[in-house]
């Protein structure tokens, strides 16, 4: 992607206007997203909430360029995303977006270091540089001592830290987290949320996080609530959560 670095000039990282995601047609038509407008600027920390079936997962898939809307426009740094093909979307993800999942999704029987290196392999980074960057990312999440441990040898919180290191190793503009604390106990959840906050403030990574816990959402600077495929509320945690 030759325009890769030009994209960051615009400070609106996400600019969505009236997008729809419709599955099926006619009688069985399901509107997972039913006309959503949303703008997210660089440096924001956004929590996305809503009951299941509210469209928040669909919205995340579209924000993460894993999926495209049926209708409407999605500009990522001002670039039209809805017309991109699979490979172009993959290139966009590779350069700008990091993912953190509820179930960590690390490669089994593969060391933490190799897991973190994986996105760099696809980016075509040379071996020595790859190693250096991956170790640096593990350092940032406080796990450099466990670089050669496999996921099975790590606790849930540690696995999620490895997953976060994997997401931030490419220096993404946007970190998308899908219930990152869903499988963790309260104390560990808090640690992970502090880490996310730190990434947001210190590394200037924009964070969008799906969660259904108000305690977790409280760490964000902005909270969105979805209901029935629409954006129901949008405001600071104080406004939305109380």
């Amino acid at each position, binding site marked *: 992607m030759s325009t890769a670095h030009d994209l960051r000039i615009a400070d609106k990282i996400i600019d969505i206007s009236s997008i729809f995601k419709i599955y099926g047609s006619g009688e069985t038509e399901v509107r997972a997203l039913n006309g959503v407008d949303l703008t997210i600027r660089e440096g924001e920390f956004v929590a996305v909430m809503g009951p299941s079936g509210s469209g928040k997962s669909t919205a995340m898939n579209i924000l993460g360029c*894993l*999926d495209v809307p049926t209708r409407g426009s999605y500009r990522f740094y001002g670039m039209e995303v809805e017309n991109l093909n*699979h*490979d172009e979307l*993959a290139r966009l993800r590779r350069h700008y977006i990091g993912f953190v999942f509820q179930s960590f*999704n690390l490669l089994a029987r593969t060391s933490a270091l190799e897991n973190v290196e994986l996105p760099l*392999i696809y980016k*075509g980074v040379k071996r020595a540089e790859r190693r250096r960057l991956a170790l640096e990312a593990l350092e940032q999440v406080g796990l450099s001592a466990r670089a050669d441990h496999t996921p099975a040898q790590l606790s849930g919180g540690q696995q999620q830290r490895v997953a976060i290191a994997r*997401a931030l190793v490419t220096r993404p503009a946007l970190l998308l987290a899908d219930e990152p604390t869903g499988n963790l106990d309260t104390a560990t959840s808090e640690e992970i949320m502090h880490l996310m906050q730190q990434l947001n403030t210190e590394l200037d990574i924009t964070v969008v996080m799906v969660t259904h816990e108000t305690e977790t959402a409280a760490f964000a600077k902005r909270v969105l609530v979805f209901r029935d495929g629409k954006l129901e509320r949008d405001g600071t945690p104080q406004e939305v959560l109380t």
Partner: protein
Amino acid sequence: MNGWDTILMALRAISRNKVRSVLTALGIVIGVASVIAMVHLGQAASRNVTAQISSMGSNLLIVRVGRQRGPGGVSSSSSPFDTADAEALQREVSGARVAPTSGTRATVVYGNANLSTSVTGVDNYYFEVRNHALAEGRQFEATELRSGAAVCILGQSIIRDVYLGQNPLGTALRVGSSACTVIGTLEAKGEGMGSDQDEVVLMPIKAVQRHLLGRFDVDTIYISALEDGSTPRVQADVEKVLRQRRRLRDDQDDDFQVRDMAEIAQTLESTTATLTWLLGAIAAVSLLVGGIGIMNIMLVSVTERTREIGIRLAIGALARDVMTQFLVEAIVLSCLGGAIGVAIGITATWLMTSQMGGPLVLSTPTLLVAFGFSALIGIVFGYVPARKAAHLNPIDSLRHE
């Protein structure tokens, strides 16, 4: 993503499931090993046949009476050759050595041992024409040939079976009803065209004609062309001379036949070559089955690793990267199988050729083709699973349990 990273990734995936990988590659191992063993076996057999034929004499023509009647059928109604025919051939065909023979079966007796064997009357050219070398003793003397003296030269099988390994030189061997003095022994030649070339008793041709046959017929004339490549010319000359001597008109067929050993050798060689191909083709079927095994396991692997594929796609792998990964995995698997198969094939060839008593001769093209085929099978049978992996949707794959 560079090539080396891809191969390392494939090796890691393969080593994660060692037992399964070994079992998957086993089909290719067996296929490649059997192709190599079978083709080399065929080639060794073909070399054996060639060696046997050339041990019978090089540039050899065999002249017998009788008309060729279709394949294999020979009528023997025509009149036999005599010594004068052989003398005429020696005189009129240039660049050839002519050895007339008269053969019959007779019982040979020494001490308590007796054996019914073929006794051949020859002159001294016979040794040269038929590639017989003396182990001990001497050839026939001119006076013995002229008078048909009762002397004989023995092959190694006769010494083993009748003399029980003792030195026969100077003893008297009873051949038929007359006693013969043994004046020489032949060096061993081994099996040739399905008969033991060492079970021979050679006597002066006149002695056989007079004492054993009671006729002065010559039944087979062996002719060797002295110059390599001159066999067809010598054959044509022999036919011309014999037609003249037997007063055949132009419209009459030959009532004798001149057979070229080189021609027979070629026929046999092409037969063994066909057999080699057949054996190789049968072995290649097992290679195909091995390929299907690889496809099967790769398909299972793609399903098992759907989530892994989803992760890779989410963090920026292109469909092409995933495709390459699975294709390379299949190729590495089948090439590993191929390499092990080559090693086992060579070992099997070595065992078989040492059983046959021949040297270990490896044909590089066979090894390369067998190995190359295993790589090709990886590509062909890895393609479908790899394509399946590459076309997975990242969202669904990530949710896959």
